[in-house]
């Protein structure tokens, strides 16, 4: 009777999906809604349940059907799986085979999942943390601004130059500082004189060969002196072909030039210049036209004289107190 009602009319424990009927009753042996596994429909019923990791065998018989509070008999099963199986067999000796089998299966399943839980406990647990969107976005913004304020490349360069100055790279790099400065001063004077000469040139239109010769000679000698001062010992330096330096200002220079610079210091370029100068001089001496060559020489020589620097003019570096033009912050 019960089954008729429970099955056909209504059962509060029944849970139906497209393919299957489930039973939500706690004491259900299989979890499915079937005639033989319905705890409501069968007065004689047995289940295995686990509470806090301890397994119990629950049994209900017809005799106790009218004492709902005392209906279920609870037997604690041994932790030992084999023993627990035996206990089930003992307790359900005269019961239907169905119950014994299902109880044993259920016991197995439960012990398996309990074991798995224990193993997982021993493993590393990943802590799941909420994504704090606002906060993460804020940090990202702050990081970007901090990055802009940091000017990391500048800081690194400064540090490296400081280290060079302090002498940590003593034996490796050799920039003869004094000679360099002296040369810089002389170049400076030279430039000033050049500037003056240029101005005076513009006013005079006619010049003699002698003047040309003299000036060329003077410049040639100056260059010669410069080369000697700037050459340095490269014997210990490791020769490497380095690719493009993106941060370098030498955009005009070729890669080959850079490699050359590395390898031979300024010697190669000097040699280059020497040969060119000589050829130029010869040309100058041979031809008769004055002003044309003069300007030509000017144009050709002045950049060469300053070829050591990156750009096509003399850069005289003064020591000035650093005036940082930091980004102006609007004070709110």
């Amino acid at each position, binding site marked *: 009777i019960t089954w008729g009602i429970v099955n056909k009319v209504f059962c509060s424990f029944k849970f139906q999906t497209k393919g299957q009927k489930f039973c939500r009753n706690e004491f259900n042996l299989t979890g499915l809604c079937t005639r033989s596994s319905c705890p409501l429909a069968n007065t004689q019923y047995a289940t295995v349940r686990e509470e806090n990791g301890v397994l119990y065998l629950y049994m209900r018989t017809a005799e106790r059907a009218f004492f709902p509070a005392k209906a279920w008999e609870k037997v604690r099963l041994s932790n030992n799986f084999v023993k627990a199986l035996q206990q089930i067999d003992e307790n359900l000796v005269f019961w239907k085979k169905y119950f014994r089998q299902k109880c044993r299966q259920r016991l197995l399943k439960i012990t398996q999942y309990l074991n798995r839980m224990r193993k997982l406990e021993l493993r*590393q647990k990943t802590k799941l943390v909420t994504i704090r969107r606002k906060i993460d976005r804020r940090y990202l913004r702050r990081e970007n601004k*901090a990055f802009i304020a940091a000017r990391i490349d500048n800081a690194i*360069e400064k540090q490296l130059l400081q280290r*060079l100055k302090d002498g*940590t790279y003593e034996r490796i790099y050799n920039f003869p500082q004094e000679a*360099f400065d002296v040369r810089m001063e002389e170049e400076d004077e030279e430039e000033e004189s050049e500037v003056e000469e240029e101005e005076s040139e513009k006013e005079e239109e006619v010049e003699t060969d002698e003047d040309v010769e003299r000036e060329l000679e003077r410049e040639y000698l100056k260059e010669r002196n410069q080369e000697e001062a700037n050459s340095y010992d490269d014997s210990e330096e490791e020769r490497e072909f380095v690719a493009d330096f993106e941060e370098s200002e030498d955009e005009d220079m070729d890669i080959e030039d850079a490699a050359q610079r590395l390898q031979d210091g300024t010697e190669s370029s000097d040699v280059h210049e020497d040969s060119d100068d000589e050829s130029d001089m010869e040309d100058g001496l041979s031809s008769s036209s004055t002003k044309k060559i003069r300007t030509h020489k000017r144009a050709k020589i002045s950049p060469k004289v300053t070829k050591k620097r990156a750009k096509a003019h003399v850069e005289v570096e003064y020591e000035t107190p650093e*005036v940082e033009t*930091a980004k102006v912050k609007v004070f709110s």
Partner: protein
Amino acid sequence: MPKGVGRWLNDVEEEGEEGEPVETKPSEDDEEMDPIFPVMGPGYGIKNKFLKRKKFKEAKVAKMQAKIEKARERFREKKAWRKAGNTGPPPTVKKEPTKLPHTIESLREPDLTYVEKDDDELAFEEATDKYAKYYEKAYEPKVLITSSYKLTGRTMAFISELRLIIPNSEFFFRRGTTVKKMVLKAVDRGFTDILVINEDRRWPNGFLLIHLPDGPAAYFRLTNPRICKDIRRTRSEITSHRPEVILNNFKTRLGQMIARMLGALFHYEPEFKGRRVCTFHNQRDFIFFRHHRYEFESSKRVNLRELGPRFTLRLQWLQDGAFDGDYEWVLKRHEMESSRRRFHL
């Protein structure tokens, strides 16, 4: 204006009448380069809109007039100069060096734990703390790099690049071992540091640095990780020379500690031949890591080429023991980050 209203305004006006802009902080003392506070406008403090606007207009007019007057002066000077028979531009009066505007760094809340250069106490502490041995060059660091349990490609790539950068480092897969177990095993095998890169949603996001025999442990949040490919470089450019380390801008005691920790990952004696430099630059509590190759063009200029990975770190906590023991410092956001001018490193 009715007298009653004007009465309390007078006080404010008096300040303004002095002719100086109303500044919130006392003016600078002697330093040339002392940063100035942004100046409050001419009508600041006056609540009456009408008066405020009037003041503002007056100030504007005065400013314009001053400008014109200045231009006139310059013209007169130039004329006089030219009259005197000189050519070229007249000599300019040397300008006062422009004062620096305030930045977040200059407005930073002063920290009691700022490190001064010659601090005996600090020197003593550093000589006796857990990193003293490294700085005495007693041992070479050996780093164990791991990750969180399930690794994906990107994190793997990042880790392999870390391996290239940090000399004498080894990578092991984490197979669900706990950190404490790892610490024990690593100590047995002679590692001096453990580095765990945590992963979340297929990006590396955590950086746990543990110094080994019972050393301090620090956890950082790792953001903006970029591998060589993202910077459009090839890994082959990274040589196996031992890099130099630059630790920039670590100002407080805590910062100093962290800097030592990070520096101790690398070998104490860099090979200058390799010209590699690893930088940890701290700015506003963000530690930026960069890896470059440098070339000295002259004694005044250096060229840098960025190789290798790039990431930023943000310290979350610093613990006394190797993932054990008291926390020396923990970031408590609500307490410590309430002011935008307060930084801890």
